[in-house]
């Protein structure tokens, strides 16, 4: 990251959405809350520090920040909290590499660097008037959660709301309390499945794609948001198409090697797409041909 020049870039270069004045300069945010979601996944709530401490922060569901662990490195992490919350930002991440593992060691009061928000958002406006199907696999529920919050806040604008969530085991299910709350609502259809389960689990066992054929939505007027490991999104989007959802109404959230987050460095280039700027939320019909190319 040190080789990337720190210079102002105009907003038009960065795509839609509000951005920091200098998108290459991390701003200090203090951790005010740490929640261990599972063995390896945790949620940090951050509050802005420094002279801009009172400046509101806004983002759209699906966008991400670059989070800097000082002395270790920087990673792109989607927001997982409510989109209307301007004082705090919430990030849920899984400890899989040196940077995310270092975040896992941080505690309340520690300071991290934040750049953002960046990237495209789930098209929650476009989905108005339609059934909304949200398919999440594993940590993929985190980037979808702001979209779920938005849809539930404006529930009357949407048709049926279906949340399908798959995880590895029951111990890997994220946001347990919210899953229970959503399951208890009469205006949300939530179905959860796990790939493996101990005998005491009485829920579904099987991959999340097996929930698609039976889910209660009208495919002819549904919009789908899919987030999870790439192979899972591929199968889920394909099954949504088989169910009758048009490919141009299915959206996925891509993850690539995002470094600068402003489409300058080219690390995240995926065919003609810069995932950091044109994505991470992208239309399935445009991504499907690219995902079939092994060399990409």
């Amino acid at each position: 990251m040190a080789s990337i020049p720190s210079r102002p870039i105009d907003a038009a270069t960065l795509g839609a959405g509000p951005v920091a004045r200098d998108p290459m300069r991390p701003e200090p945010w203090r951790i005010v809350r740490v929640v261990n979601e599972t063995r390896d996944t945790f949620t940090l709530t951050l509050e802005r520090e420094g002279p801009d401490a009172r400046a509101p922060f806004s983002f759209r569901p699906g966008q991400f920040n670059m989070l800097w662990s000082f002395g270790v490195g920087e990673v792109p992490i989607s927001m997982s909290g409510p989109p209307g919350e301007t004082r705090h930002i919430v990030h849920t991440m899984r400890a899989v590499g040196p940077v995310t593992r270092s975040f896992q060691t941080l505690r309340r009061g520690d300071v991290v660097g934040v750049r953002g928000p960046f990237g495209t958002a789930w098209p929650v406006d476009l989905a108005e008037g339609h059934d909304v199907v949200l398919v999440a696999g594993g940590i993929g529920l985190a980037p979808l959660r702001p979209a779920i919050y938005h849809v539930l806040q404006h529930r009357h604008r949407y048709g049926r709301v279906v949340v399908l969530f798959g995880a590895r085991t029951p111990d890997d299910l994220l946001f347990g309390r919210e899953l229970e709350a959503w399951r208890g609502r009469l205006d949300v259809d939530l179905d959860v499945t796990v790939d493996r389960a101990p005998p005491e689990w009485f829920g579904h066992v099987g991959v999340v794609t097996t929930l698609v054929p039976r889910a209660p939505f009208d495919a002819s007027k549904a919009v789908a948001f899919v987030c999870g490991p790439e192979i899972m999104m591929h199968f889920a989007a394909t099954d949504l198409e088989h169910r009758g959802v048009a490919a141009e109404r299915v959206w996925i959230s891509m993850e690539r090697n995002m470094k600068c987050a402003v489409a300058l460095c080219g690390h995240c280039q995926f065919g003609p797409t810069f995932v950091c700027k044109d994505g991470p939320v992208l239309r399935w019909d445009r991504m499907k041909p690219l995902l079939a190319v092994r060399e990409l």
Partner: protein
Amino acid sequence: MTLEPILAEVEFFRGMKQEHLALVAGCAQNVRYDRGEFAGRVGDPADKFWVVREGRMALELHTPNRGAITIATMTEGDVVGFSWLLPPYQLRFDVHVLQPTRALMFDGACLRGKCVADPSLGLDLYQRVTRIIAERLEAMSLQLLDVYGEHPIETD
């Protein structure tokens, strides 16, 4: 009362010719299981299969050191059991009832006989079953990939 109207509403039989439905219905009966029951055990003669109408059943394997392992769960509309199609006609999994379940149970030997007697029924039924087997294989492949596991390439 004939089960034909009920069969016609089941996704697995959707679009099946009326005369075929009538033949299949002749091998079907309604059954009910309580939670905790086993509808079948590994090694039992596979002389039946089920279509779940309500409830939940699990396909399980029991291993000496790990206990029962759930391979997949089956709910409304799912077909449970394919061993009735092929020799030696023995169940390969335990069929464990996780929730009170109502199901259509089919006599496999009866259906096999009707498929031999009426190859057009046999072709139709085997095509339907093959599609389900392909879907299950695909799902099992995804399970084997362990897509949510920690993989060496996932670093930051």
